[in-house]
């Protein structure tokens, strides 16, 4: 019982990171970014490139992926969004638009890299820090499993969970300690009024979109370790999983995602352990149940319901 619980929390923290970018974009722009999972997939390719081409610790991919996709997000925002907002049903159209975009990303990635599954040896993640780890926890400078309550967990899980916590902390600092973040929260909670008071919604949204994609790509850096391998087609599953996590924790509330992630991670690990043949069904059934029974998420306000 203890093992799946701890593993669930580790995975759950990681799942929070997977979903948080999607939720930030939704919260600010009321757009479901269906290409979210594809940015995760691209993040995984960044990690792969850092490791195979440059021979570096995949952890180096984190800042690279974040910077790269932040900029990509800003550019995309300015290209796509102004046109969308002139349409009559921007919510639905953007949904379809990002679906098309997700297809384009998947196709281009397939054309460049092929369809084969890729993986990175688990011990490579954060191996450059094993010296630091030895200095803190003692022991030898290796990248072996972590001991938690006498149970051992792959070091990569612990690293991913740690980076996720740091990243979520940064999102918190951004939202609550910076000026742009404060404006972002204003737009999230009362969009119409925020526009009426003259907040530059475009700037806030562009920033949220950039950060959202950046966070997705950072989550992607760890995907090869958390899911074992990845392919260009991995995006759509990642999108659905992110959506489950986000809906669990309440749409439009980025910090609720942390709770959603942990709940999802723990239930995933429990089902995996005790009902493994039905584990694949979990995210889908959970998603439908939550949407129908408690559309506002575990903590949160109302979702638009017809």
């Amino acid at each position, binding site marked *: 019982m203890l093992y799946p619980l701890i593993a669930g929390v580790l995975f759950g923290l990681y799942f929070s990171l997977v979903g948080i970018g999607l939720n930030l974009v939704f919260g600010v722009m009321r757009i*479901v970014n269906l290409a979210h999972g594809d940015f995760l997939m691209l993040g995984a390719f960044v990690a792969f490139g850092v490791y195979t081409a440059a021979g570096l610790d995949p952890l180096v991919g984190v800042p690279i992926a974040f910077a790269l996709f932040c900029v990509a997000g800003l550019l995309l925002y300015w290209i*796509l969004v102004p*046109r*969308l907002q002139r*349409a009559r049903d921007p*919510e*639905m*159209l*953007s*949904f*379809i*638009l990002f*679906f*098309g*975009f*997700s*297809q*384009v*990303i*998947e*196709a*281009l990635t*397939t*054309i460049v890299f092929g369809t084969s599954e890729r993986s990175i040896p688990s011990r490579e993640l954060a191996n450059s820090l094993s010296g630091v780890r030895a200095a803190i926890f003692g022991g030898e400078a290796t990248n072996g499993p972590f001991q938690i309550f006498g149970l051992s967990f792959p070091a990569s899980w612990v690293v991913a969970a740690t980076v996720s916590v740091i990243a979520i902390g940064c999102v918190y600092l951004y939202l609550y300690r910076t000026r742009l973040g404060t404006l972002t929260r204003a737009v999230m909670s009362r969009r119409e009024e925020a526009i009426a008071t003259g907040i530059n919604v475009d700037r806030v949204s562009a920033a949220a979109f950039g950060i959202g994609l950046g966070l997705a790509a950072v989550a992607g850096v760890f995907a090869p370790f958390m899911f074992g391998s990845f392919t260009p087609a991995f995006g*759509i599953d990642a999108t*659905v999983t992110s*959506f*489950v996590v986000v809906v669990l924790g309440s749409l439009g509330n980025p910090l609720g995602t942390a709770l959603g992630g942990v709940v999802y991670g723990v239930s995933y690990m429990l089902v995996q352990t005790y009902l493994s*043949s*039905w584990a*694949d*069904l979990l*995210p*889908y*059934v959970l*998603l*439908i149940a939550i*949407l*129908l029974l408690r*559309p506002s998420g575990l903590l949160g306000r109302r*979702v*638009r*319901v*017809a």
Partner: protein
Amino acid sequence: MPDTLRHYLFIAVPLLVVLAVLPSVYNNHLLLFNFVIFFILAQGVNIIYGFTGYLPFGYVGFFGAGAYGFALMVMHLNSPAPVAVLAGGLVAVVLGLILTPLLRLAGAYFSIANLAAALAVLHLIANPALESITKGPYGVALNGTFNPTWAYAGAVLILALTLGIVVYLKNSSFGLALQAVREDSFSASMSGVNVVKMRTIAWLASALVAGLAGGVFAWYVSVFYPDNVFSADFSIFAIVFALFGGVATICGPLIGVIILYGIYNLIGFTTPQYFQLIYGLLIMGLVLFLPAGLVSLATRRGWNVP
């Protein structure tokens, strides 16, 4: 002559006649069969998306359920193929009834919940624990009923039914009421329209034709795996074809299938990623430049397109 009859005589009947004659002059019967299937599915998407505004990302769920409805009838009850096709349609309608609560969700929430539902059905059927009933992930082989000629005829018949439904919706006050619900459900109910009943009927009609198409598909191919009949490509193609031509019309989805599925087959199955790239770009271009589909090129000029 009333419009209903005129539209059926001048749009549906010529198409059906051409499809009935083509197998005797053109050798690639599988291609013709696939065209018929996509005519049905694109019009099925038209029924639910075009007339009621619900975008069914998991539309393939009904198709797959229909295919497995057919397979189960044949495997376990030795039922004759036409009866099994009808059973496939019935299974899809039952699935549609179970999923009726999803219609409470608006916009993107519905689409994602519907996608999750289709994936849940796939994982249920493909579950090794149910091997004795569904053959699980190992797929089914139905030798006894194999008869491509009759299966093709059945598909054309189902297309005739589907076109009948669309022509009716296009020309009846029922179809008008559905579009009213799509535009604003509360104004529609204040016009006396029973919103819940109307959209449930459209939803089940759309499920029925996809289920019948799935049944006849199972009849035609006879050997298939869960991943074949639940492939997301069916949903994606059907939606893209319908959107591309223009929904809430009779001709739009047909034009969409002829042009896009035509291009798909010219590019060939060997490099699906190139087609994926093209249709991804097409979707994006459509949303940005031609959100009402190809037919809007004509309607913008004031021409009436049925």
